[in-house]
């Protein structure tokens, strides 16, 4: 690994450790909870504040620990020479490893959390069944499958065009394999998250549980999306580099189209406000008063967990 890659690795590591430390600070947890509340335009009753902040922080911690473990292991593998790579591309692998770890850590944190409602309190549940499609916008769910299919196709293309070039083939194949694995993780983990029970004592608790589920599922889809995008850009650039004349021009045009497609998709995703998608699907008629804290609730002891 060259000096620049070491610098980036250490910098990202320090930021992650600081982020991990901050996630244990209660004020930060509350700030994140209210930030979410403000973005979703959803009231956060004070009796749910601690529980929501705690779940958000558990998810963040899981993601950061996963990123640190997988990213750290990858740095170790590169620095000891266990994985050989062109120094200019090592940083791309590290970013890919960080995204993979983020996905794995978030999934583990989401699947291991438990919540309970006191048995003497009323229980609330949705009367209709919910599915993954209710928690994540099609542009992200279908988009992840499409870009993973593209990176696999690009990896096959590279294998056909330059079967002997390990410098081109190994990175693209690694990104394609990592993207497929993280897509599989997303599919399995998101299904398990949606199928898990939602014990809730009020509408507000149920809405917030949905908000956290949606947020976790969206975090999970980031890994296959990012890995597939990296792999595709890498593979198309490698193909263009390998080609000559018109084929090279076509390769660079292809890379430009991939990047343009990404920019358009990203813009469309931002405009459609995907974080609020679950509200339109699961709570289309939700009013502020449905989740706002009533005087009686405010006076009740905050013993429950979301």
């Amino acid at each position, binding site marked *: 690994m060259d000096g620049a890659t070491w610098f980036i690795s250490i910098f990202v590591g320090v930021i992650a450790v600081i982020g991990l430390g901050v996630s244990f600070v209660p004020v930060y947890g509350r700030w994140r909870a209210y930030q979410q509340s403000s973005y979703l335009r959803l009231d956060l009753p004070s009796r749910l504040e601690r529980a929501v902040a705690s779940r958000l922080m558990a998810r963040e911690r899981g993601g950061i620990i996963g990123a640190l473990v997988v990213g750290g292991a990858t740095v170790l593998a590169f620095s000891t020479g266990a994985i050989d790579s062109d120094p200019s591309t090592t940083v791309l692998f590290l970013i890919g490893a960080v995204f993979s770890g983020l996905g794995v850590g978030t999934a583990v944190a989401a699947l291991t959390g438990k919540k309970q*409602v006191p*048995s*003497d*309190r*009323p*229980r*609330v*549940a*949705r*009367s*209709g*069944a919910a599915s993954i*499609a209710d928690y994540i916008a*099609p542009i992200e769910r279908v988009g992840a499958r499409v870009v993973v299919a593209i990176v696999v196709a690009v990896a096959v293309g590279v294998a056909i065009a330059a079967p002997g070039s390990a410098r081109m083939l190994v990175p693209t194949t690694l990104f394609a394999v990592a993207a497929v694995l993280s897509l599989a993780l997303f599919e399995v983990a998101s299904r398990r998250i949606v*199928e898990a*029970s*939602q*014990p*809730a004592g009020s*509408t507000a608790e*149920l809405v917030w549980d949905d908000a956290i589920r949606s947020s976790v599922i969206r975090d999970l889809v980031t890994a296959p999306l990012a890995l597939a995008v990296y792999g595709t850009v890498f593979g198309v650039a490698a193909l263009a580099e390998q080609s000559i004349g018109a084929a090279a021009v076509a390769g660079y045009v292809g890379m430009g189209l991939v990047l343009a497609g990404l920019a358009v998709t990203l813009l469309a995703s931002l405009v459609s406000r995907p974080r609020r998608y679950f509200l*339109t699907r699961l709570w*289309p008629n939700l009013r502020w008063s449905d989740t706002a804290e009533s005087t009686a609730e405010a006076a009740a002891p905050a013993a429950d967990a979301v």
Partner: protein
Amino acid sequence: MLTIDPKSPVPPFEQLRLQFIEQVRGGELAAGAKLPTVRRLADDLGLAPNTVARCYRELERDGFIETRGRNGSFVSAQGDPAEQQAQAAARAYADRIGQLGVSRADALRWVTAALGAGS
């Protein structure tokens, strides 16, 4: 939304059954809507799975829901045959709108316009 109050004098089974019937009749649960699995609803509401299963059996016997093997339980179309067909068509339209990613507001606007044009 279903609410089970453990302090209520009405047994949980009856609370659940009445709320389902009310929601089916009121249209909150539309024909074709999928219900949660017995185990999932029992976990969510803190009830025994047998209580929810019994409720589903009674709702099915009374024609409010139907069980489609391993696919789960769904709300049955209510009313006379014409109303049932209309509900099935509405369900098909809603499913197609969901697949196309069209907004709820647009879907309602178009169906209202179509109804206006047909009358």
